[in-house]
């Protein structure tokens, strides 16, 4: 988005199909949820309008605050590990030849496994008696148990997520890297630029677009993580791995009342929206400032 784009209101016609599609499958259901969140539904026939009562109840919920903090910590850890690792992987993946194809397929494999299977496999994989990971750690002298020790459980969930989702970052960055014309590298070689300078001033700015998609996707998806920790640890031990969506589901299923659950979902959505908005604007500004800096040099 370098130059100024011409104004053309007719472009709306091109966007219209997308708006219709997404509105049909997102806005309508969302309106239903808003509707529920304002009512006490005792039975399908008996509903009471309660206004913002559910919202204030949810906001005061101490356990929710705990789950939110755990969630934030987890999502930040996910970003802190997966983004640098994904970039490094993308930089070290071969650019051409059969090795490139083979590495691409191998790296993408973990993305293709259904999430409940991922949890199940890690459940066995991490067991000290019959799983490779658990048994190996046990042999090395660690008293490893993801079901008994809260820290171990948390690290296992994080490792599982890194295993599962780093390929997404790596693939996006890899596609971005391959887009850089050779002329840039040649120019850098003539200037005698160091590897780091090439990364900092050529590769990183060129990856900005895909990196932004990667960061936003990983943030929102890790914020909504449900299936894998549910299958692996069930939120335990205690509530060490009870993240937000886990807690939401416990509430919604446990209480048979869609009102508070709906209010909870909306607050949940607003939290993700807020963080993504901040991230998005921050990255746009950093990127713009960086490009300006390069142009000035």
């Amino acid at each position, binding site marked *: 988005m370098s130059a100024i*784009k011409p104004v053309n209101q007719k472009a709306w016609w091109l966007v219209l199909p997308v708006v219709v599609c997404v509105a049909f499958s997102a806005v309508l259901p969302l309106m239903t949820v808003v509707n529920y969140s304002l009512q006490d539904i005792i039975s399908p026939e008996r509903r009471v309008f309660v206004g913002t009562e559910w919202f204030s109840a949810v906001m005061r919920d101490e356990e929710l605050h705990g789950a939110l903090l755990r969630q934030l910590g987890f999502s930040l850890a996910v970003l802190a590990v997966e983004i640098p690792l994904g970039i490094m*992987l993308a*930089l070290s993946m071969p650019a051409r030849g059969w090795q490139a194809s083979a590495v691409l397929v191998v790296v993408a494999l*973990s993305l293709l496994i259904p999430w409940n299977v991922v949890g199940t*496999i890690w459940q066995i994989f991490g067991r000290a008696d019959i799983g490779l990971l658990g048994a190996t750690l046990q042999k090395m002298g660690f008293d490893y148990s993801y079901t008994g020790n809260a820290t171990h459980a948390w690290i296992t969930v994080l490792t599982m997520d890194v295993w599962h989702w780093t390929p997404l970052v790596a*693939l996006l960055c890899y596609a971005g890297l391959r887009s850089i014309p050779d002329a840039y590298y040649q120019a850098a070689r003539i200037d005698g630029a160091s590897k780091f300078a090439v990364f900092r001033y050529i590769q990183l700015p060129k990856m900005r677009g895909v990196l932004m998609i990667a960061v936003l996707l990983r943030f929102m998806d890790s914020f909504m993580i449900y299936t894998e920790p549910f299958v692996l640890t069930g939120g335990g031990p205690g509530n060490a791995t009870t993240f937000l969506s886990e807690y939401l589901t416990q509430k919604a299923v446990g209480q048979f009342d869609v009102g508070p659950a709906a209010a909870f979902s909306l607050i949940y*959505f607003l939290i993700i929206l807020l963080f993504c908005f901040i991230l998005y604007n921050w990255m746009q500004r950093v990127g713009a400032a960086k490009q300006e800096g390069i142009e000035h040099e």
Partner: protein
Amino acid sequence: MNEERFQKRRLLLACYIVFALLPIYWMVNMSFKTNEEILSSFSFFPQHFTWSNYKTIFTDPAWYSGYINSLIIVAINMTISITVALPAAYAFSRYSFIGDKHLFFWLLTNRMTPPAVFLLPFFQLYSTLGMMDTHLAVALAHLVFNVPLAVWILEGFMSGIPREIDETAYIDGYSFPRFFLTIFLPLIKAGVGVTAFFCFMFSWVELLLARTLTSVDAKPIVATMTRTVSASGMDWATLAAAGVLTIVPGAIVIWFVRHYIAKGFAMGRV
């Protein structure tokens, strides 16, 4: 140039590949064992090698129809997602219009709602429309997260194509559809390949909505897999075999689009 640096990178890649393959190896290993063997002992190779788990899947219609249903759902979803996302991404990358930035970000916000939130509303919506247990219902439901993703990724690729190409084509007398299909689309093949893979992947593994909206006729494989959890305990071996088989179609897809990903953006994103 820098031999040592090069070695370090290769080492990192090799370590990661081992890390990536170990759990998958364990799954393959489990799929050739019996349940008793999985739970009783630790072994790097199956001691009593058996094909019976795979046999179960290939002979039981409830199992293999799951794969067929999944493929139909994913195909419908990919087709719709990419067809509607292409013109929209073009509009976002080429023109500015009222509300374009807000609309662009709004699209992504639809990915920010936990799928669990949509369960009940979707159930009511598709029941009312009489579309429960059809492939189309699941494919449409999956548009919520795939269309925004497709628009975002495609927009990134399209912005990398200089606008002069469009202008030259219009001056040469190309109509918009003809220009788009014969000139523009081939230029962003890479983007379409990557987008197709991501749409495939997210729709293929989605469980919650797929399970809620189907019962028998359109039940995808991820929902069928939940059968392995029953009152008599987990059927680990069959689940592992089914897991191995779920990787296969996706691996084929990535094999086909690998050149597009490796070639990257035709012109480079600016």
